[in-house]
């Protein structure tokens, strides 16, 4: 009968499938040896070999993060014979109680531990190890294993470099390829380049003889795996400049970021107050103190803090106005201590300066009134049907400068900042119930707009390049470390490059046109042709924030800098000197005689305590 036949066929199929499973089991469990080389088989022991972690260099090959050797003391409880607890304690610089406690623990869990080796004491110094090695024969069952610890030969980069720490149980749950006792990068570059720096562990497998003592390589070492050292990383940081930046920023709260405009490479990234490298080396001990500090030194302000950009944002509004055709460089607007924007006479204030001004001079003198007119023209552009539509267009243009979104740098914990959307104002004021006057503060970079210091530095780079940037990054390609090709692609803004020179001219005059009312004269260094823009951003939590962006020299710029100092008053008072000193140091190698006093004043002043 046909159906019987089919049932039989199905049963034959079942038998075949089961035989395949049996065959595979036979292969895995009996024929194949490689699945038996697990560490916990009590006839074998696996000795881990930890690879040295990759080291980190600065852009000129100077070592920023190196390794120093230290040792873990291991013990195989079953091999331990009687020993003198007190003398071992003194050799290892620990207490007898600690040793007794550990041994009691091993005894309690002896069935679970079996022949496996346990970590007895972590990270002992090379000196301690030497003493131990001399007397090792007195303590059977104990041995040492090489580990490496981080070492920082040069004090530069604290927060930027980040620290490593031992894996936590929670981390292990998500990362099955780590084992308890491994180290991994927690923050900064150590975290961002973990996969490169880490390398991979190796092991040697030994077999015990019947007495459980002597060991021979298992299978002649066929299953041994050699450790692969971590890859070395070259950063784009200039170690000397970074160190100088940290000196300038000491005692101030804020960020200082310098970018090489022609590559997008970050030369310096200071977040202050930060952490010194000697703290990194022994992070565990300092952690609780640091995490309770009210100035949050662990927090990398340069990428993770967002502030209103203040007047430096006028550059963007001016450029958007030019691109839209609603602003011409020759247009003049009046300003008598501010811009009156409601019929009842509400006024957005400005400082006293001559009036009216054209675009170049408005940039030079940072005139609030002028840029209110500019922003009004942008939002009330007759080409669009409503303020909302014009605003949405403006937002798109602004975002093309890297604001309101993550730049995509290779640095972890980068924030996106915020450029408010029309939808936001529709929610807040109801659709159709807001217009230029409602959002007037955006004209001068105040209000709902928030940016990170890195984004502001990127704006400086855009100005330096006259209209494009490279995504800022801190790691360079070197050896077998490759970086994403996106870092070598020009990112153009939506503003045509032909509109940039006039605004740049204004930035040049702000610094170099002495006696004409420029806001950044303090940054003037003869011959350097620094172009800059100050900003004084209102801070609801206290004194205004002091902001300055600049680049130099005017032609073929080598460096673009942003300084953002919290609660430090006018842009010209702190941000401007700090940024200009950094530029001078980078381009000249030293500070000119005339500016030594300025340098001393900056370095010695403490704005926070």
């Amino acid at each position, binding site marked *: 009968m046909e159906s019987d036949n*089919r049932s039989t066929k*199905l049963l034959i199929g*079942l038998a075949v499938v089961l035989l395949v499973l049996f065959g595979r*089991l036979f292969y*895995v*469990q009996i024929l194949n040896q490689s699945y038996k080389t697990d560490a916990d088989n009590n006839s074998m022991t696996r000795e881990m070999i930890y690879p040295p972690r990759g080291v980190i260099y600065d852009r000129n090959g100077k070592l920023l993060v190196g390794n120093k050797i230290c040792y873990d003391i291991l013990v195989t409880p079953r091999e331990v014979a009687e020993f003198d607890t007190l003398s071992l304690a003194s050799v290892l610089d620990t207490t007898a109680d600690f040793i007794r406690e550990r041994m009691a623990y091993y005894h309690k869990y002896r069935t679970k531990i079996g022949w496996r080796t346990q970590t007895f004491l972590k990270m002992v110094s090379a000196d301690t190890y030497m003493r131990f090695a001399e007397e090792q024969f007195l303590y059977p069952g104990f041995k040492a294993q090489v580990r490496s610890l981080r070492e920082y030969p040069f004090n530069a980069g604290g927060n930027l470099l980040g620290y490593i720490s031992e894996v936590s149980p929670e981390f292990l749950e998500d990362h099955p390829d780590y084992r308890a006792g491994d180290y991994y990068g927690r923050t900064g570059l150590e975290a961002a380049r973990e996969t490169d720096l880490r390398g991979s562990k190796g092991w040697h497998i030994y077999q015990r003889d019947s007495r459980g003592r002597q060991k021979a390589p298992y299978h002649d070492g066929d299953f041994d795996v050699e450790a692969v050292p971590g890859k070395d990383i070259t950063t784009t940081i200039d170690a000397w400049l970074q160190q100088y930046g940290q000196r300038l920023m000491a005692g101030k709260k804020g960020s200082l970021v310098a970018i090489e405009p022609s590559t997008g490479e970050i030369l310096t990234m200071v977040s202050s107050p930060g952490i010194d490298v000697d703290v990194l080396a022994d992070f565990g001990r300092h952690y609780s103190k640091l995490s309770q500090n009210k100035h949050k030194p662990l927090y990398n302000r340069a990428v993770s803090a967002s502030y209103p950009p203040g007047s430096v944002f006028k550059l963007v509004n001016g450029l958007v106005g030019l691109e839209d055709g609603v602003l011409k460089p020759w247009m003049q607007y009046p300003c008598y201590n501010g811009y009156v924007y409601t019929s009842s006479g509400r006024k957005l204030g400005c400082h006293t300066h001559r009036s009216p001004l054209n675009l170049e001079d408005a940039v030079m003198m940072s005139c609030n009134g002028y840029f209110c007119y500019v922003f009004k023209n942008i939002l009330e552009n007759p080409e669009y049907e409503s303020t909302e539509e014009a605003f949405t267009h403006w937002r798109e243009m602004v975002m093309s400068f890297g604001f309101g979104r993550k730049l995509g740098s290779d640095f972890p914990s980068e924030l996106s900042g915020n450029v408010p959307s029309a939808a936001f104002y529709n929610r807040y004021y109801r659709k159709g119930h807001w217009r230029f006057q409602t959002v007037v503060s955006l004209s001068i970079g105040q209000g709902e707009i928030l940016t990170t210091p890195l984004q502001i530095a990127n704006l400086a780079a855009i100005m330096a390049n006259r209209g494009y940037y490279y995504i800022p990054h801190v790691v360079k390609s070197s050896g077998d470390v490759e970086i994403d090709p996106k870092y070598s692609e020009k990112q153009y803004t939506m503003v045509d490059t032909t509109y940039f020179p006039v605004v740049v001219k204004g930035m040049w005059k702000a610094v170099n046109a002495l006696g004409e009312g420029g806001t950044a004269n303090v940054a003037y260094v003869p011959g350097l042709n620094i172009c800059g823009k100050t900003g004084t951003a209102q801070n609801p939590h206290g004194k205004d924030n002091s902001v300055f962006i600049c680049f130099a020299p005017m032609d073929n710029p080598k460096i673009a800098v942003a300084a953002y100092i919290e609660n430090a008053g006018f842009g010209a008072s702190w941000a401007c000197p700090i940024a200009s000193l950094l530029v001078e140091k980078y381009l000249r190698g030293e500070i000119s005689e005339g500016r030594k006093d300025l340098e001393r004043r900056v370095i010695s002043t403490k704005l926070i305590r």
Partner: protein
Amino acid sequence: MKEGALDRGLKKTVDWKLIVLYLMIMLFGWINIYAAVRSGEPSSIFDLSCNSGKQALWMAGAVVIAALLLFVLNPYFWESISRPAYGVVLMLLVLVIFMSNNVKGSHSWFELGPVKFQPAEMSKITTSLLLASVMSRPYFKLSNWKHMLVAALIVLMPMLVIIAESETGSALVYVGFIFVLYREGLSGWWLALLGLAVLLFVLTVRTQWWISLIVVVVCVAAYLVYYLRRTPTLRYRRRVVRNAVLGFVAGLALILASDVFFNNVLKDYQRERVELLLGMREDPKGVGYNVRQSLIAIGSGGLFGKGYLQGTQTTFGFVPEQSTDFIFCTVGEEWGFVGSVFLIALYGLLIFWIIRDAEKARSGFTRIYGFCVAACFFMHLVINVGMTLGLMPVIGIPLPLFSYGGSSLWAFTVLLFIFIALDRQEKKYF
């Protein structure tokens, strides 16, 4: 139900072999769950704070359910409610997509306070019931394309919804119903087509699409040459040519579907698992880690295993999901080749006897339902054990009656005992 009938018939009518196998698998599973979750501190197997204790409660519940199904409920009741039950479960399957919390990327669990359950478990039962009910109706013939379509829809609807729940693995079980259709007269060509689909999928993913195309062309050409020689009449020749063209088109469609399925339907992690299985990816730390650890655990068991509770790989947390999806590792490590073969043989015997009983049934409903049950057990067994042995991609489905988990245990209990009860009715009124 009369007392006398029950007393007289119990020994002869109930297939005790199945019940013994059921209990053996379940108890063996339980002690292995204990082995898998036990940590250094000794605790009782009944300790309610760990999985083995909870499983004891689930097992007690399962036995009560089994007794109810066997002695209290009339099994033909199930046939009568097969339609509404199927409809309700299908609705639950859809609802759960919108109402459930996201558990590891899938939306398939209902949470009612402390109780969690997966409607997908119940859907195997209702699909089997409806399929059996529809196909056992008089004049139902798979050769009629309308009937064929109905049968296919019954299987495909829950399957597609489960795929929408991101439980592609659980949906794979439904492929097993093709064996039921084959038993009931589906052309063997469909099985061949399924095999070809798997082959083309592997080839398309692993190599290039044009290699798959060559395979299709060769198959079609071989078919043409073989049959054209044997069929002298023009009419048959035409039909052969038509089949060849259809086959070629189907092949092309399969290649395209494989590509789309692999690159667009599968989630990233699923794609990685498939790539790993096909050897396109060496990744012993990431995706491959589970499989690698699973193989080490099983491999280290050797011929006789390390002995009960002596395993180190499974108890020290090297293997993930030790008491649920990867429970077979514990068997492999602690009971060795002998124990593993024994367990698989238990399943083999269970499936074998279900098929034997089903074949003997006079009622079409019982027969078809029996084959559905056998197919479900078979698919779960092969996928789960195949996964731990690195023969299948990592698909999180339980080993029936063995893995930890109440909803799965109860679902398989119901699935099996409806059949045992149906089978008993067969013999009772002989």
